[in-house]
């Protein structure tokens, strides 16, 4: 069973592989490897006491576990959809075990396994026996997170059938993200507080070990102490959990198609000829607002950025720190972009109606407007209320300048990414079991988050200069600059997206019908260019953000944290130039990577109306009959 499913999974992956998808996979895999290697590196640290290191390791395992629970929010449906096996006369448990083993064949699992090898490393530092105990612990831990992810997806899917449920899952997921990322805050706190020498409080140590992700560690530690009872109990506990999760999951596999919770529309659908809803764009705005209101998947996408932004900035209040409060609005403006990253993919093949009515422009502008109507008011309210609450007067121009730039920027960037990097998923009426199933948008969401930060650069330049020279005029000029940036980016990126939609519309529809790109991979980038682009993305990211922009900010603010920011280790006068060189280097590498990634694609057919009847792209790869 497992062998058949694994082969099936690999075949499906092979058949649905496109150049873009492969690139996302490689980039995602590389990031994963970086995290995994960092985890192993942690277990090798000689400079901190072993006990503290174990606490940290346990905390990192919690983060890995949270990552597995939250992952499907962007990862979408699994390759082997449970639907495929609904009519198979195979015992549910056998199917569940098979699917679990198939689940192990994935980059994510391999990367996580690599990270968990740190437990063996840690065990080896304690002795041979603990190292031996660590081996089964690693496998149990891996099976645990993979299963937990599957069960979480089923549970979220059931809960999210109603919109309130979807909102709840959104809140839950955002809370987990806040928890996982607050690890960074802990890390900074560690450097400042000297906990590395003194160790964490007992509460922390106990908590991270009480969570099942830490049981493997408990087993290893107990084995080192010779406490065999606890060691066995920890391993047995983990195994028991796995069995329980497997039982729960296999039970859900056998459940016949669950009825969708019916969401009702309104009886009244009068034509609106005036105001916001008039005309072509207006009618799309109205359709979009209704969809945002009625689709549980979209409800969840609204709540994730909202709660994430609030949670991230409110968390420091627990130690009476209001420093982050004003940044809630910019954070929401940036993260909300992730909700916009696959706006066409969400609607699936409904694109044919846009193509047949020739309303590409109205459709895209309507979607942008609806997005701004949903996220705009709440972001602006949060901007004003939270900044006022914080009492940090200096933050006003920053918040008022960055928020509109990022809001508008994301409306533009999201529209563009939705068109050029569309991620196909099952159509809404073909996924009645789980309203949360959708295409894999991990890459797109990440691109929007980090790219969204860049939209703040124009006002940030004025803000920085104003701060450095203590010039109120420059500071406040940033506000109209921010508004102008937002308006311009929404308009301009939207325009690029409209043009792309007009030219590539039929190809996008084909992709969503068949799950395959209409261009075959062979004509994508040459191999050498692909590697150069990949290197550009990777090294460029490292140079631009952690080695460039972050040190610049630290230098500006006068923060004395060196961490792994290279320029800050240099002698005083060299810090600024080296940080700027890093920014330039990173930008240049990004430039090369962007050029190779996007420009090298085979040229799309010419714009309609160019006179010629048809000059189609070569190499369609799958037939349409009976889709």
């Amino acid at each position, binding site marked *: 069973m497992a062998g058949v499913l694994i082969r099936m999974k690999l075949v499906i992956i092979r058949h649905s592989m496109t150049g873009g998808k492969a690139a996302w996979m490689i980039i995602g895999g590389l990031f994963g490897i970086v995290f995994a290697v960092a985890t192993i590196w942690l277990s090798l640290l000689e400079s901190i006491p072993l006990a503290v290191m174990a606490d940290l390791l346990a905390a990192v395992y919690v983060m890995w576990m949270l990552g597995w629970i939250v992952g499907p929010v962007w990862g979408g449906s699994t390759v082997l959809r449970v639907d495929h096996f609904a009519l198979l006369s195979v015992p549910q448990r056998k199917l569940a075990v098979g699917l679990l083993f198939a689940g192990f064949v994935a980059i994510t699992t391999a990367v996580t396994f690599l990270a968990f090898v740190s437990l063996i490393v840690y065990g080896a530092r304690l002795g041979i026996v603990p190292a031996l105990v660590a081996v089964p612990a690693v496998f149990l831990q891996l099976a645990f997170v993979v299963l937990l992810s599957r069960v979480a997806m089923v549970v979220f899917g059931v809960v999210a059938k109603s919109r309130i449920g979807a909102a709840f899952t959104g809140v839950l997921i955002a809370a987990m993200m806040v928890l996982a990322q607050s690890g960074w805050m802990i890390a900074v706190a560690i450097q400042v507080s000297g906990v590395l020498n003194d160790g964490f409080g007992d509460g922390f140590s106990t908590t991270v070990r009480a969570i099942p992700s830490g049981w493997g560690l408990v087993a290893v530690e107990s084995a080192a102490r010779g406490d065999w009872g606890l060691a066995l109990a920890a391993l047995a506990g983990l195994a028991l959990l796995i069995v329980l999760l497997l039982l729960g999951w296999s039970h859900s596999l056998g459940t016949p198609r669950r009825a969708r919770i019916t969401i009702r529309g309104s*009886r009244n659908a*009068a034509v609106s000829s005036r105001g916001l809803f008039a005309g072509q764009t207006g009618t799309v705005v109205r359709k979009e607002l209704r969809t945002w209101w009625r689709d549980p998947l979209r409800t969840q996408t609204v709540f994730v950025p909202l709660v994430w932004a609030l949670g991230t900035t409110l968390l420091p209040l627990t130690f009476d720190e209001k420093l982050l409060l004003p940044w809630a609005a910019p954070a929401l403006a940036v993260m909300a972009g992730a909700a916009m990253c696959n706006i066409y993919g969400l609607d699936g093949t409904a694109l044919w*109606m846009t193509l047949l*009515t*020739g309303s590409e422009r109205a459709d895209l502008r309507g979607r942008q407007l609806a997005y701004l109507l949903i996220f705009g008011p709440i972001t602006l309210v949060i901007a004003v209320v939270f900044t006022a609450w914080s009492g940090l007067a200096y933050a006003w121009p920053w918040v008022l300048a960055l928020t509109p730039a990022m809001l508008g920027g994301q409306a533009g960037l999201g529209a563009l990414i939705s068109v050029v990097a569309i991620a196909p998923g099952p159509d809404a009426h073909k996924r009645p079991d789980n309203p949360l199933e959708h295409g894999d948008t991990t890459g797109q969401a990440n691109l929007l988050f980090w790219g969204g930060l860049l939209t703040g650069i124009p006002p940030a330049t004025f803000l920085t200069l104003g701060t450095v020279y203590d010039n109120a005029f420059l500071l406040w000029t940033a506000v109209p600059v921010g508004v102008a940036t937002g308006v311009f980016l929404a308009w301009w990126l939207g325009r690029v997206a409209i043009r792309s939609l007009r030219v590539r519309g039929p190809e996008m529809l084909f992709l969503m*019908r068949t799950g395959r790109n209409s261009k075959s991979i062979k004509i994508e980038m040459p191999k050498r260019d692909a590697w150069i682009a990949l290197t550009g993305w990777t090294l460029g990211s490292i140079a631009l953000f952690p080695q460039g922009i972050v040190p610049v900010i630290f230098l500006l603010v006068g923060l004395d944290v060196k961490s792994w920011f290279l320029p800050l280790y240099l002698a005083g006068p060299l810090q600024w130039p080296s940080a700027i060189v890093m920014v330039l280097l990173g930008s240049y590498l990004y430039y090369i990577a962007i050029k190779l990634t996007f420009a090298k694609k085979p040229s799309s057919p010419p714009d309609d109306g160019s006179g010629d*009847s*048809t000059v189609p792209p070569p190499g369609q790869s799958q*037939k*349409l009959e009976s889709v």
Partner: protein
Amino acid sequence: MDQVTSQDSEELPRREEPALRLEGLHKVFADNVAVDDVDLVVPQGSFFGLVGPNGAGKTTALSMAVGLLRPDKGRSEVFGVDVWSDPVQAKSLMGVLPDGLAMPERLTGRELLTFIGQLRGIADDVVAQRTQELLNVMELNDAERTLVVDYSTGMRKKIGLATALLHGPRLLVLDEPFEAVDPVSAAALKAILVRFVASGGSVVLSSHVMALVEQLCDTVAVMAKGKVVAAGPLDEVRGDRTLEETFVRLVDVEAGNREGLSWLAS
């Protein structure tokens, strides 16, 4: 977009042009020629049936004909207007019902029709009135507050056909319009289509239900393995036999395949 209404836009289609003309349409998917240099002419006012076994290339050909799939080569003209070089005008002349595609799923039937009507630039009062009529005719009035995503397959066909009819097109291109539609609804759909043709409209539909095509269509084309193997008035194509017999002869089904499956229910 200009207001486009059916019977009142007489000047748009030129009288002598066929409703739909496909010239050398060609489409290759990887190693498979899905549509192989297809030529077809659908005369104005005809009820045209495109028949063929599964995988014959019907959906691919129709998708290319209406502008939803880019052909490798070839042309498609609607009343003399090229679908790929003048899409706006061409698409205003036809109504399309694709098979199995999504729609704006979170709208009710009435909201969907209103949305499409506004997108097509039809006057507000006309949209409201036509929507009401279409909902009546399609018997979708009972499901006033049901979202399209919760529609049954038959209801999806009906609302799809309603969106295709809304702007009063001169040509209807329907991919498997009767698949999964119950007999009562099918009778209603047939009546609508027959009336549409009687009032001067043209219909192209694909199907593999021969009896239905024989009953409705006056002109047929048979596709097999991406090629048109026969086309013309129904009586000419089928000769003295039934359409089904002609079809089986034309598409060359290998009888040997029926010998297998000895293990089944034995």
